[in-house]
């Protein structure tokens, strides 16, 4: 489901009323602002932040800028969009790089926000960039927290420094730093125990760790589902530790994620990463402009394209395109492609990123992984010859394939038909060029990107 889904719906509904009008009266703006205020509050944006935000938008909206413009409704959308981007931080922030390695990163936050998982995910990103991160297991309080980090480290093949739960986190951090220096690790990521922002003893402990290892980057991990208290938490952690950035977790849920806006607004610190799932590669950089676009229902085409690019094998994609052009596409390619699609992640999540409300229209369409599995079984029950040349599949072959895949003949028939249709479709697409995919699609509101081979 779309991130901020309900907020987007809400604002769209509000502005639909405005878009129809020629000019805006102050009363119109007031009506719209009431809706914006309500939507933001329901999205868990902090009360104070909402107040300021609405005041700012209103001030700009009732100004001459709007009244003289040809389409005032659009103008208000634009202002809300701009102010949202402003509120969330206008540029994408990157993680620090120290001129003298290792770069020390410390993760802090309340219990259960996802610190340990985030430490591993960020380390994974760094590793993919060719860095050599070391993880330090500094949560000595929660049972098996150290073990959790060790298991994740093992999964990712990233070293974990641990001294058990009898040694103070300050000492663990200090010795982990020495270890990193000795072993040529260029990043040290320190996991810490979850703690309440009002717990003075444990906050002191963090200050001590900070004083000892002087982190280049302190990241506060914030749960996207957090409510009004997020502002107090972020404010206090920032006051005590002077954090450098935020990590927003569990954004793959159906939360409206207002906590992101609150935490950003109150600390003034950028959101650097967004957790999008439980898998170790489900961590993305934060793009304020895209997020604002998503809020306003303009889709998130850029993220979609990047996701596709990151997971698609370029050479394979090129080869596939060639085959398409020559109409040589076979079931083997089809299997390949299904594999690629699967790598891109949850279908629903992909659909939600589509612009122009396509995702919304398809919101209730469940793309069942079981269907995918069934199709795969059918294809895999074909002989190599059949896969290369499906036209030879006669009724006795169909029966054999159905038996082999545990399906019915009509399933096989349907797939063959779909495959043929898809092939025709792809031929048409390939004429206009799949290569367009990499180009910016944000301006083309409402037009679907030429997404290759979505067979359902």
């Amino acid at each position, binding site marked *: *489901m779309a991130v901020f889904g309900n907020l987007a719906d809400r604002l769209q509904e509000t502005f639909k009323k405005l878009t129809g009008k020629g000019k805006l009266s102050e009363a119109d703006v007031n009506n719209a602002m009431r809706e914006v205020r*309500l939507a933001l*509050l*329901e*999205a*868990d944006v*902090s*009360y104070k932040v909402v107040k300021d935000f609405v005041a700012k938008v209103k001030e700009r909206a009732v100004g001459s800028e709007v009244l003289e413009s040809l389409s005032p409704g659009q103008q208000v959308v634009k202002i809300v969009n701009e102010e949202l981007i402003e509120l969330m931080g206008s540029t994408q922030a990157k993680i620090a790089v120290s001129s003298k390695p290792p770069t020390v990163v410390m993760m802090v936050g*309340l*219990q*259960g*926000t*996802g610190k340990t998982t985030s430490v591993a995910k960020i380390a994974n990103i760094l590793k993919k960039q060719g860095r050599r991160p070391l993880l330090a297991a500094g949560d000595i*309080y*929660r*049972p*098996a*927290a150290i*073990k*959790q*980090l*060790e*298991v*994740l480290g093992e*999964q990712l093949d990233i070293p974990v420094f641990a001294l058990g739960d009898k040694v103070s986190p300050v000492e663990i951090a200090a010795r982990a730093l020495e270890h990193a220096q000795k072993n040529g690790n260029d990043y040290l990521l320190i996991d810490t125990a979850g703690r*309440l*922002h*009002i*717990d*003075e*003893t*444990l906050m002191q402990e963090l200050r001590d760790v900070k004083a000892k290892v002087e982190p280049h980057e302190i990241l506060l991990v914030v*749960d996207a*589902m*957090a*409510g*009004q*208290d*997020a502002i*107090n*938490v972020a404010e206090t952690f920032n006051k005590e530790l002077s954090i450098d950035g935020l990590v927003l977790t*569990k954004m*793959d*849920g*159906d*939360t*409206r994620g*207002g*906590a992101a806006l609150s935490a950003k607004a109150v600390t003034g610190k950028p959101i650097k990463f967004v957790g999008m799932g*439980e898998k170790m590669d489900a961590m993305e950089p934060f793009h304020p402009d895209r997020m604002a676009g998503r809020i306003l229902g303009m889709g998130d085409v850029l993220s979609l394209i990047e996701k596709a690019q990151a997971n698609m094998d370029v050479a394979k994609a090129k080869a596939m395109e060639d085959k398409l052009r020559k109409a040589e596409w076979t079931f083997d390619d089809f299997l390949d492609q299904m594999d690629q699609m699967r790598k891109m992640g949850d279908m629903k999540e992909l659909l939600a990123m589509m612009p122009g409300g396509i995702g919304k229209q398809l919101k209730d369409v*469940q793309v069942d*992984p079981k269907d995918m599995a069934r199709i795969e079984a059918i294809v895999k029950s074909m002989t190599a010859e059949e896969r290369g040349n499906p036209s030879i599949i006669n009724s006795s072959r169909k029966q054999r394939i159905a038996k082999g895949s545990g399906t019915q003949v009509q399933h096989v028939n349907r797939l063959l038909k779909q495959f043929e249709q898809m092939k025709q479709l792809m031929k048409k697409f390939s004429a206009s060029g799949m290569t367009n995919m990499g180009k910016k699609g944000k301006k083309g509101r409402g037009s679907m990107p030429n997404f290759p081979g979505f067979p359902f």
Partner: protein
Amino acid sequence: MGFFSKLKQGLTKTRDEFNSKMSSVFSFGRKIDEGFYEELEETLIQSDVGFETAIDLVESLRAREKAEKIKDTETLQQALEDEIAKMLTGDVAENQGINIKDNCLNIILVVGVNGAGKTTTIGKMANYYNSRKKKVLLAAADTFRAAAIEQLTVWGERVGVDVIRQNSGSDPGAVVFDACQAAVSRKTDILIVDTAGRLQNKANLMEELKKINKIIDREAPDANVEILLVLDSGTGQNAISQAKLFGEVVPLTGIILTKLDGTAKGGVVIGLTHELNLPVKMIGVGEGINDLREFVPADFACALFAKGNDVDEDEHEDDEY
């Protein structure tokens, strides 16, 4: 003075600072006017009560002010706390606690999103019932998250109860199956089932939960089953989606509200219990083994405006960590 008493003192002092901001709305001798109601609405929203519920509460309070000719804020605060407590109690009978029957197997299935505090709550619950002379068994059906099984095992050792477990990554349904069999044959009083955290919009994971519940129904048909949603009190309006969607796949019988020792108020449960008729059964007020309390609606309502006798300040014994 032990480490934990000291810690608690620290907690209390800072929390009071937060609370004093909140409680100013009902300050003594204040005039009841538009400004007062606006500020009240603001306070309620800031406690995550939610916009609609906040409006409802304020409206009902206005009505009572008129009907009962209330002139002072103190009486009005009492009236508001009544209203909130009424919403929290709903149609449920006076005994809101977890329903445990004698002489039969009780199964408590614990569900919730990631990081809500399920495993910790189960550890505390195991201690709660173990110290009340019940025979408790735990099932480590969170086979997904790294080291979740170990975490529950540590709690099992602390409390001194057995944990039914398999290897990480194994089928949670199989763990529950084993646990039900073991509970029946060992004549266990209470089987508490830990499950993996899952976001409520993940269809597959929710299906898995349905399956776990089916296994319980099938393998222990005579058991008295409670299905509890663990909810982080720091959660905002998403809690409503959590309760609704979890409730669609398994028949929830109540809520456990965790992490109430912070500054988060957990006000979202007011609208939640009201709308879904889902009572809060227990609250978590810390990481210690004894930090699980019965839920008292009146205390909770009071804590929203923090008059001092906060929910967790009464007799908070030192915790044996």
